[in-house]
């Protein structure tokens, strides 16, 4: 199948997922509410110490995105399972990687919107000023989100064939996400602290490297994980 056909199929899957989500709204509202709740709980746990809150902001930001993201990834396949739509989806001819690409794009938009909310709430809740190098922060969010979504979409597909998928997904996903989260948190922390040691660039490079590795690996192995 030509690349153009695969691209059309991927766009169709992404459009279908986003349209379904936009109309039902159930997924995004609950996931966003969870992310904000996690941030508020972090805020309570850290207490009134603004310095401690500022120091914890990068970790709280990425962990809340991670926990809320897991819900989103599970949901992206739950939509297929609920109506028995996964089978027709798997029966369309052509490479399954276009399904993965479509799901990936839809999940990226979903988590990017979530990140926008999480960042704004984090800035307010943890008394963090918008850093001078905010474009760099956006890059970290972009590459961190790509890593999170790539692995999340991939392992959600793997877990979707299991009855214990809600439990299985975090168990599979969290250990694999450690390098992405570590790099994203360290880069975020460096940028929020003014990047005095000029270490943000190195962490971003590491993040990009992990993204590339995970993107390539998941695209080439998706056919096997989605098979019954």
């Amino acid at each position: 199948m030509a690349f153009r056909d695969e691209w059309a199929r991927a766009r169709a899957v992404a459009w279908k997922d986003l349209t379904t989500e936009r109309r039902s709204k159930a997924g995004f509202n609950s996931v966003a509410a969870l992310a904000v709740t996690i941030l508020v709980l972090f805020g309570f746990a850290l207490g009134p110490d603004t310095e401690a809150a500022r120091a914890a902001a990068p970790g709280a930001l990425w962990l809340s995105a991670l926990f809320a993201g897991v819900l989103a990834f599970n949901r992206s396949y739950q939509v297929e399972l609920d109506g028995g739509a996964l089978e027709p989806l798997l029966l369309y001819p052509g490479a399954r990687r276009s399904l993965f690409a479509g799901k990936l794009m839809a999940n990226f938009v979903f988590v990017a919107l979530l990140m926008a909310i999480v960042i704004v709430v984090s800035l307010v809740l943890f008394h963090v000023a918008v850093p001078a190098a905010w474009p760099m922060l956006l890059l970290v969010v972009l590459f961190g989100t790509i890593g999170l979504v790539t692995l999340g979409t991939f392992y959600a597909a793997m877990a979707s064939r299991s009855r214990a998928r809600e439990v299985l997904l975090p168990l599979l996903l969290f250990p694999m996400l450690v390098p992405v989260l570590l790099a994203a948190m360290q880069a975020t922390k460096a940028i929020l602290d003014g990047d005095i040691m000029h270490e943000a660039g190195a962490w971003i490079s590491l993040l990009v490297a992990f993204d590339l590795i995970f993107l390539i690996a998941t695209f080439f192995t998706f056919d096997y994980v989605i098979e019954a």
Partner: protein
Amino acid sequence: MNPSEADLAIDARMLARRFGARWVLRGVSLALRSGEAAGLVGDNGSGKSTLLRLLCTLIRPNAGSATIFGADVVKSADRVRELVGFLSPVPGVYDDLTARENVRFAATMLGRPAAQADAALERVGLVHVASERVRGFSSGMLRRLSLARLLVQAPRLILLDEPYNNFDAQGIELVNAVIRETVARGGSALVVVHDVGLAAPVVARWFGLRDGKIEPLAGAPTRGVAPAGAFASSGAVH
């Protein structure tokens, strides 16, 4: 005359499949020629749906082999998916999309033009609700929508699992018309039914599945539900 491998719509040999420790299919051999429609009956749990799911590549056999117009269901699964259309008892549509969006999505995934999706909707009689979300559709309307997806695909082999469920008389005739048209253009159909009378006007040969093995029916059924034990005691199906 022995038909060549590519002339056989289905050439299954000793197909076996188990789920856990339970063998659902225990060596199914079945040959279906181009331009032929066959019916498959059997008790609940006899493996009818499993056989269809194997033939359309949704699951893989644990043993044996099968080809669809010469394409192996395991080694050439992607080619098989181009040749086969599967109508499942579950509609497999998206509740929050409209009927038109559902069929157009299928058309895009199949590489067909959107106009084909609109024509299919008209054919199944859902044009008047094409812009409505599927969430409020009745079971019969959902079945019609699934059938529209099959019409868009226009595959060479159609595998129909309980295709008459939830259909009114018009819907039943629609299913039979789809089978007739597929056969008329040189394709084939394998229809799983409980009420053999519904498919009798379009089905030329009947098979039965029992205890994980396929057997030819003792005689062509005319009306009613296939009686238990109505299978011949032995015999290959080729």
